[in-house]
């Protein structure tokens, strides 16, 4: 499951903001489709790549969006944020193999969740959320650069240049 909001990336340069958000979503969806069926929770169904299913975003924040998506999932759910354009199928498989697990961003927020039982989810997103998830249950913290590399700025795009998926990487030519 990939929660996506088109207007979430306000720190990216205006010239590429909209394109980058869509490109990143495309790269995450492409990686995820190699692993299993993909749900995109969003209010902007026009940008959702083919092959994935759209779930309407109730519009009450990331936690509510994920909760809405989880009602459609039976069994093991993986929640991968839409701003992880370095995501690969191998990294997502590794996250899934860890059982109840999360990937922590450098700033302590949560980039991805592995929920063998979707009822283990709680809307704890926001600053310091990785600590709150670990306090809620025995979440294993998976170390994976591909899923830790959330892109918020042009500097992030440069920093992760060699890891970016093809759609997002093509934007580097525009920012250079």
């Amino acid at each position, binding site marked *: 499951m990939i929660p996506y909001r088109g207007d979430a990336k306000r720190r990216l340069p205006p010239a590429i903001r909209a394109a980058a958000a869509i490109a990143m979503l495309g790269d995450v969806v492409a990686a995820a489709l190699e692993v299993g069926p993909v749900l995109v929770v969003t209010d902007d169904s026009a940008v959702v790549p083919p092959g994935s299913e759209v779930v309407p975003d109730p519009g009450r924040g990331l936690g509510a969006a994920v909760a809405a998506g989880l009602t459609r999932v039976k069994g093991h759910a993986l929640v991968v944020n839409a701003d992880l354009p370095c995501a690969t199928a191998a990294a997502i498989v590794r996250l899934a193999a860890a059982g109840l*697990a999360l990937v922590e961003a450098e700033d302590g927020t949560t980039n991805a969740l592995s929920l063998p039982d979707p009822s283990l989810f709680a809307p704890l997103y926001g600053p310091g959320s990785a600590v709150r998830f670990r306090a809620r249950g025995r979440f294993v913290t998976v*170390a994976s*650069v591909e899923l830790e*590399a959330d892109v918020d700025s042009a500097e992030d795009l440069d920093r992760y240049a060699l*890891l970016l998926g093809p759609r997002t990487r093509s934007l580097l030519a525009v920012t250079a």
Partner: protein
Amino acid sequence: MKTVLLSGGGGGARFARGLADTLPPGDLTVVGNVGDDLEILGLHVSPDLDSLLYTLAGLIDGGRGWGRKGESWNALVSARAWGGEDWFRLGDLDLGLHLVRTELLHAGMSLSGVTDQLREKASVSTRILPATDGRLRTHVHAPAGSFPFQEWFVARAHEDEVDAVSYEGAEDARAASGVLEALADAEAILIAPSNPYLSIGPILAVGEIRTAVESRRVRCVAVSPLVGGKAVSGPLDRMLSRMAGGTTPAHVAGCYPALIDGLVIDGADAPGEADVELVATRTLMSDRDAARRLAEHVLEAACG
């Protein structure tokens, strides 16, 4: 009081700082675990020695509990992009130390020589010695197979239950330069609140060190790493339950047969019966002052 502490990283390192804050400068020697050392990306990494150094130098990231404050991860991102491994977290600041250590080892310096040089650079007055300058590696044996320590601890998130632990290279390992001298000169020998199997076990697996502690003429006191039968962090409570049959002070003391005269336990643990003297106090080191108070209690217990 000349004191030798056997220690892992983490809680052991915090206890070492409590002792360093209590004892006169130069009186403390820490013998650190090297069973969890690893070679990764061409570098020799000694996580427990580094945690001791970073903690004693005030460089440790207290929130994370390992690595340096103010760390960044660009080198890891780049290594990953070029096809390197990323399961073992090496930060940019941390990497500088590993580069220097690896270069000095390649130039022929011993691990104890390198560690001492790094300690001096960090202006740390406490001596830090690796248990051995030889190669000693901890392996964890679990139902799913046998794993090098870091693979089990980090890559597999120490989720596997542990049936046994072994120390590759221990049979031939000699104590590192300075360790036996420090033990012979010690007026007290202490065992840190570290994991007996994973942190202290590899140190005592070095025959010369075990013999020196067994034949001590001063008291040896260990600090239990459990509070209320639970590990403050890490897998020790699960390991003790499975491998020793319980998590009482007696089970902890049983990890150190003939090696300790006393065990300092937390007030939350029922003392029960044990073969060694039990001293109860508050062992949770929530801050630097708490670590210093614990150190004072433990040194008192070591005086008998």
